[in-house]
């Protein structure tokens, strides 16, 4: 069986959902070693076992920005006992560690993959390109293959394994070349996380002005939804980068996605087109978003949204 490493970050006393999604795929492909980044705990190790990890490489970077030291420790370990495949998620620390690890090992990274296979000693990955209209199948010529998987590509599922053996990897001292985290700020967020919400309400340029994003927030609050945004209004500074849904941003697959004043640029569609139900409100009857919407309302968001919010409030 091929050796497959899957990167998992610890969030509180549990692995992140993204990490568990990677474990679900990894156990289809081979013998799974989870790379755990975080302080570690009995509960988190047990969860990794339940999700198919037969061993754990545990990295705790403390207050150091993890990429440099984690990549150095993983590269040493990978050189002495190379896995066939290393899976990371398309997320902040994942990207940082994967990039530095790849540069250390002298191999490439297959980014933004929505699927991965091992066959005949080689790797094949699938990537949604051109706004999700096409699927590219790609390969790399030299392992260990490092693949970044988009969130929600696979479904996390416990299989009931026991607590796996844990090997602690000590991140080496990087000397001067080290970044440290001096403070952490948690921003107040109403409602669920964007990537885990069952309803997402997003806004785009059609809102006209940053203040109008309040309509998106009000509707989101009313529905218990997460709120998202297009790249256009993130670039314009109306909302933070963390809210960006799309190719360069988050992938969401909620039960219902409500696109408010979003024309449907390819950049955006790739991040939300797999939502179960899509509702779009836009003034332009020819907006591309309407071609994928289950319900398209040709109208002004400034008129439709207040009425919709009121109708929901009075229920």
């Amino acid at each position: 069986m091929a050796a497959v490493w899957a990167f998992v970050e610890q969030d509180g006393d549990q692995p992140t959902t993204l990490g568990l999604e990677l474990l679900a795929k990894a156990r289809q492909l081979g013998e799974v070693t989870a790379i755990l980044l975080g302080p570690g705990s009995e509960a988190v190790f047990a969860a990794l076992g339940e999700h198919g990890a037969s061993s754990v490489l545990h990295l705790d970077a403390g207050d150091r920005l993890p990429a440099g030291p984690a990549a150095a420790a993983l590269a040493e370990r990978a050189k002495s006992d190379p896995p066939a495949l290393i899976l990371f998620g398309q997320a902040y620390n994942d990207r940082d560690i994967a990039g530095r690890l790849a540069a250390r090992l002298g191999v490439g990274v297959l980014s933004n993959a929505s699927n991965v296979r091992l066959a005949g000693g080689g790797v094949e990955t699938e990537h949604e390109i051109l706004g999700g209209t096409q699927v590219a199948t790609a390969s790399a010529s030299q392992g260990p293959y490092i693949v970044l998987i988009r969130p929600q590509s696979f479904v996390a599922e416990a299989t009931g394994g026991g607590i796996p053996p844990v090997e602690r990897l000590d991140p080496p001292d990087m000397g001067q070349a080290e970044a440290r985290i001096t403070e952490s700020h948690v921003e107040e967020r109403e409602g669920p996380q964007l990537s885990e919400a069952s309803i997402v309400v997003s806004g785009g340029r059609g809102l006209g002005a940053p203040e109008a994003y309040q309509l998106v927030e009000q509707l989101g609050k009313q529905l218990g939804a997460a709120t998202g945004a297009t790249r256009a209004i993130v670039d314009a500074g109306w909302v933070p980068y963390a809210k960006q849904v799309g190719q360069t941003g988050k992938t969401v697959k909620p039960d219902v996605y409500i696109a408010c004043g979003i024309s449907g640029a390819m950049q955006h569609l790739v991040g939300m087109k797999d939502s179960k139900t899509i509702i779009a409100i836009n003034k332009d009857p020819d907006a591309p978003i309407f071609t994928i919407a289950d319900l398209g309302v040709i109208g002004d968001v400034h008129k439709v949204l207040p009425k919709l919010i009121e109708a929901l409030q009075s229920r």
Partner: protein
Amino acid sequence: MKVVVCVKQIPDPATPYRLEEGNNWLIRPEEQILDDTDRYGVEMGLQLAQASEGTVTLVSMGPAGNGQGIRQALAMGADKAILVEDNTLRGSDALTTARVLAAAIEKEEFDLVIAGTESTDGYSGVVPQMLAEILGVPALTYATKVETADGAVTIHRQTASGYDVVSSSLPAVVSVTAGVVEPRYPTFKGIMDAKKKPVDAFSIGDLGAERAPEQLVLSITAAPERAGGNKVEDDGEAHLAIVSLLEDRKVI
């Protein structure tokens, strides 16, 4: 302070992207534009350099074409550009790109390298980190705020739940998110001056950079199409259609 900003010329995202027959590489027209993502990095670099009477050097890899994208960044106020253009670099992956950029940057003295978080056309999202690894410096990534003082850099780093304050000594690589600063528009004088600013061209051979192991696009297939297209014109009551669909989907 000597600031290097990585920039990329890309086909205008407002035009449909097409792939070359056979190798499936993105077709790059003669006229490409500065990736919007890079305007934030250029602006950040200019502000930091201006505060310290420093310089901003642009480093870019890819077909030069008519160089319009590079001129856009020079017109904003950067001092000069280094362009690595080489036919053998077509279809390069992130690691080859990072090695080439690192080799070009090493020709300069630098305190700070700034890059966007990911390009709009390739969006692998790992070049800044690879670059830092090859240069042997820290990468402070996903910055929503950047400050430098006393040979150190401090950023606000975007996280899933908020932001971290992260610091390191210089030299370092910083990747910036959109909105880190408000990019300026080039002035008429800036546009005229840009025409006279030096753009040095190198090949991969000049730099002695080594290509990464090859990555291949094996095939391209059409993704399953999503059926949609039920449209209603808002006559003042369209919100009721939305309420009824939300009820039907049992989310309210």
